[in-house]
C-alpha cells in the first residue's frame, strides 16, 4: 500500500520527526526538480525475491523516468515489477556544508514495446555512458515520490560522532 506523501519513508538513515530534527520533507515538484537536475540514479529491483541495485542514467519524460537497457540483463528482468529509483546529491560545491537531498520514486518499470512509444523515446536525450548496446527503453511510471533534504550535521557539534569518527572519512 502506498504511503502518504508526508510520511518520510525515505531516509538518509533514520529520523521520524522531520521538522524538529532539521530534516525538510520535500514536496512533489521539488522532488521532480531535483530528479531533473541529476543524470545518475540507483534502481532497486527485486529479482527472485532478492533485492538488487544498479546505477542507471536516465531522463525525465512527461512525469515518468526513462532509461535504456539490454535484453537478458537483470535490469530487464525487473521490468513489469515494482521498482524504487533513488537520486541524491549535495546542493553546494562544498559537500561538507551544503544541503544533502535524496528523492525516491516508487513505481512500475515497463519496457516500451509499442512502436509509437519507442519512436518517442528514441528522441529523448538519453545517451547511455557505456558503449554496450542497450536497445530497450524502460519507463518507470511513478506510484509515489518522496524526498527530503537536510543540512549536513556539523561534525564539530556531533560529539557522538567524534568519538566514533573514522579518520579520513570526510570527502
Amino acid at each position: 500500500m502506498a504511503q502518504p506523501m508526508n510520511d518520510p519513508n525515505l531516509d538518509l538513515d533514520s529520523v521520524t520527526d522531520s521538522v524538529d530534527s532539521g530534516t525538510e520533507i520535500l514536496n512533489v515538484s521539488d522532488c521532480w526538480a531535483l530528479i531533473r537536475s541529476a543524470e545518475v540514479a540507483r534502481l532497486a529491483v527485486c529479482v527472485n525475491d532478492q533485492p538488487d541495485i544498479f546505477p542507471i542514467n536516465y531522463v525525465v519524460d512527461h512525469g515518468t523516468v526513462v532509461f535504456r537497457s539490454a535484453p537478458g540483463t537483470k535490469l530487464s528482468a525487473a521490468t513489469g515489477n515494482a521498482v524504487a529509483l533513488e537520486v541524491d546529491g549535495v546542493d553546494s560545491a562544498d559537500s561538507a556544508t551544503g544541503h544533502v537531498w535524496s528523492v525516491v520514486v516508487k513505481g512500475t518499470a515497463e519496457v516500451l514495446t509499442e512502436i509509437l512509444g519507442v519512436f518517442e523515446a528514441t528522441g529523448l536525450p538519453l545517451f547511455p555512458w557505456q558503449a554496450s548496446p542497450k536497445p530497450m527503453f524502460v519507463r518507470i511510471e511513478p506510484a509515489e515520490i518522496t524526498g527530503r533534504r537536510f543540512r549536513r550535521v556539523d561534525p564539530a557539534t556531533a560529539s557522538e560522532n567524534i568519538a566514533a569518527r573514522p579518520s579520513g572519512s570526510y570527502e
Partner: protein
Amino acid sequence: MDTHTFVDDLTDDVCQTLLASHDVGRLAFLGDDGYPIVFPVNYAVDGDDIIVKTDHGEMYEHVPLHRVAFEVDQFDEAKHTGWNLLVRGEARDVTDSHGEIYAMGLRRGPTVWAPGERHHWLAIRIERISGRQIVRSTSQDSNPHEPNGATDE
C-alpha cells in the same frame, strides 16, 4: 578526438579498497508493500561487515536476518565515467542492551550526516562484492585499474 567507453570489472582488492575508502552507500531491501526500498546511508567497514546506524523503523524491521544489496558509486557526470560496487549479504542487528555495537569494540562507527539520534546498529556481512568501472579510452587518463575514486579527495 576519438573516444570510446568500455566497462571493466574491478578486482576484488580494488573493490575492497574502494569500499573501505568511502562512507556513503545505498542500501536496498524488500519492504512489505512489494516494493524494494532504497536508502542512502553512511557506513563504515568493520572486518567483513558493513556497519550502518539507524533509528528508521522500516530499516530495522526489514533488514536484519534478510539478504540485502548495498551499492557504492562515484560518477563524473561531465566525463561520463565512474565506478560502482555491489555488495550482497545477510544483515543482522548488532546492537546490545547498552545501545553500543555488539562485540566489536566500536573501533569504527559510521559518521552520520543526517540529523537525529540513532540507536540501532546493523551489520551487513560482505558475502559477495563486485565492481565495475566505465572508462573512456582517449585521454591520458591514468591506469584504468586505478579509478580516480580509489584515493580520497
